[in-house]
């Protein structure tokens, strides 16, 4: 009798979860499986008929001359945007955490770059960076006509110019999360530290940062994924140019698929990227669970 009731409850529970599971499978797992299938196959259009070719697509993609440069650019892009977003987000969060008048209005204003559609933000930065009629060079010309910079047309400045624009659009999210974390720190902790003689820097390093650690870890994970997956800002500002100097993997994947109609190569690169992204997260999961187990053992002892 009791087991029948349990079974009924479980059936009800599963039937409630089923629609969501199906949507999840269709929207998330099926595309991943198809990318996997394409990466090991020759794909012919328009029917996406596949013929298994083993690891040939991976070999072909890895032998492309631009792949090393794209890999370096992807790392620079991801790390640099993470650092700039954190720097801007932390400064903004600390500023907005003060009780100065007008901070509430400023909080809304600071969210603008994040709220703005990416295509609008890209066009704004395109105008700002324009070599001949951009605002930045307009001011530089006032100082000295010879110090203007070809922001998006010079291989040494193109990637970093777009990194900054990309970081500008994303820093409000970091700010918002850190601000929420800051406001969740009990005031008593900081007061106690101050009574014990800690200066503001010590309070920040020994109280604020440790309390924000869970938020920071989550933010790093989210920002890394966002950085690696980003596409629209780079595509609109340089499209990987000049001469491939600002191409990252997401642009290369798009180019292989939609310019070259090479869906196999595009899928092979996507699979490699998924693996590269997954490794640090699995490593983090394993390390943190080992640490938790160690702590539990210590507490038990």
């Amino acid at each position, binding site marked *: 009798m009791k087991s029948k009731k349990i079974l009924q409850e479980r059936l009800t529970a599963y039937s409630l979860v089923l629609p969501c*599971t199906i949507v999840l*499978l*269709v929207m998330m*797992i*099926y595309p991943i*499986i*198809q990318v996997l*299938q394409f990466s090991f196959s020759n794909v*012919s*259009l*328009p*029917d*996406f*008929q*596949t013929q298994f070719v083993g690891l040939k697509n991976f070999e072909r993609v890895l032998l492309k001359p631009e792949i090393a440069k794209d890999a370096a650019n992807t790392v620079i892009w991801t790390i640099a945007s993470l650092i700039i977003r954190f720097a801007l987000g932390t400064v903004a969060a600390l500023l907005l955490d003060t009780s100065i008048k007008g901070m509430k209005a400023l909080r809304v204003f600071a969210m603008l770059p994040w709220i703005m559609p990416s295509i609008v933000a890209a066009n704004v930065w*395109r105008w700002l960076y*324009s*070599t*001949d*009629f951009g605002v930045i060079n307009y001011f530089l*010309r006032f100082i000295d*006509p010879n110090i*203007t910079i*070809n922001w*998006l*047309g*010079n*291989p040494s400045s*193109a990637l970093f110019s777009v990194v900054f624009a990309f970081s500008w659009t994303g820093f409000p999210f970091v700010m918002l999360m850190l601000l929420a974390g800051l406001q969740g720190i009990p005031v008593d902790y900081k007061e106690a530290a101050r009574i014990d003689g800690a200066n503001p820097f010590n309070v920040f390093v020994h109280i604020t940062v440790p309390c924000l650690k869970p938020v920071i870890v989550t933010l790093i994970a989210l920002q890394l994924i966002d950085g690696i997956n980003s596409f629209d800002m780079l*595509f*609109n*500002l*340089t*499209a*990987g*140019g*000049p*001469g*491939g*100097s600002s191409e990252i993997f997401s642009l290369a994947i*798009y*180019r292989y698929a*939609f*310019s*070259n*109609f090479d869906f196999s190569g595009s899928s092979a690169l996507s699979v490699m990227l998924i693996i590269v992204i997954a490794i640090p997260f699995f490593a983090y999961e394993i390390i943190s669970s080992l640490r938790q187990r160690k702590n539990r053992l210590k507490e038990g002892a």
Partner: protein
Amino acid sequence: MLKRVVALFTIACMAITLASCSSSPKSSATSSGSKNVTVWLGSWWKDQVPSIEKNFAQDNPGYTVKIQLEPIDNYLENAVTAIVGGTPPDALDLDTLMIPTPIGQNLLCPLDSMMQQYNLKASDFVSQVYNVGVKGNSVYAIPDRAAPSVLFYNKTMFDKAGVAYPTDSWTKQQLLSAAQKLTIPGKQYGYGIAASNSDPANVMTSFCPILWSSGGDFLNKDMTKATLSTPQGIAGIKYYVDLFRTYKVVPDGTLNYSITKDLLPMLENGTLAMLPIGDSNMNPLIDAFKAHGWQWGTTLEAAGPTREGGWSMTIPSTAKNVAGAEKFIAWFVKPNNISSQNIVMPGVKSAKGQGLWKDPMWNVFWVANDKSQDVPATPKWSQVQNIVVIDLQKALQGSMTPEQAAKDMDSQIDAIL
């Protein structure tokens, strides 16, 4: 632990089942018998949509056409996604540069039987645009627009600099010499070339006439080998690069500039004296020049054949209503229908004497049509174009000499042909 493994296994089985269900080939083009036709046109057709929809319905009782406008950014990518996803329009308008690759990938239907059924002849259309849509003995695209480039120049700037106006018989040397006299570094430039990765078609508009007028070309006649590293090809690349690096007669930001986003605004605000432009740029430019009180002129591009741009109507291989699409295309390219719009220059020869297209202002474009050339209609064109643009940028930024760029282009192109 066992529960987790079982759950994961179940999910994987369900996902594989789903994948195999949808991996089966999608249906190819069909005729549903529907009288509703869907069409994709570029967003610049916006003002003409109501009249096209109304006139088609009037001329074809019982039929309706629904036009969807698509922005030029990612136009081909969106079209390909729709075709392979099984949700394409019935009729799809494509740029000449976009046509060869989808033909090679079997994404477009042959239109030979339609040509016969509606009595359309190859000789009715601007040949350079028509030929791009021909592969083997079949035609896959029917021209509705011809878009050769002509040289638009600011007469007021020429007068101020005391330079003679360009003529149809100008050489490249004369173009360079005038551009040098018209350039004031940091303030105004004599000529404009596009080199941005984000709009490769614009780069081709700038680069092709220079390459061809130097006697060079992208591929040999049977399109089996790249020919950019011939002395003529290198000379074309060198001239293009020298405009930027040696003579500095084109804007400083050229490496990331496209014609539409950057150079046209410079022409409109008087910081650029000469620019090859297409038909659709004429009216906005004339309005801007009138507002400034400036004089303008047009002539054929210096020295060589211009690149023949254009758009043609196609039917995607997964279209649902082929018969309806054929009916619309045949109606759309009729000389009196295609010439009744004022958006783009018709790709139908006999439209020359009809509507606003008989205005003498357009004569230079009709002449340019006869002296134009198009890029090789190879199915690998998208890749060829990408390779050329990236290496041109490398030569422009100085990380490769024109000779090195030409050799690299050839070796990369030969590898994919």
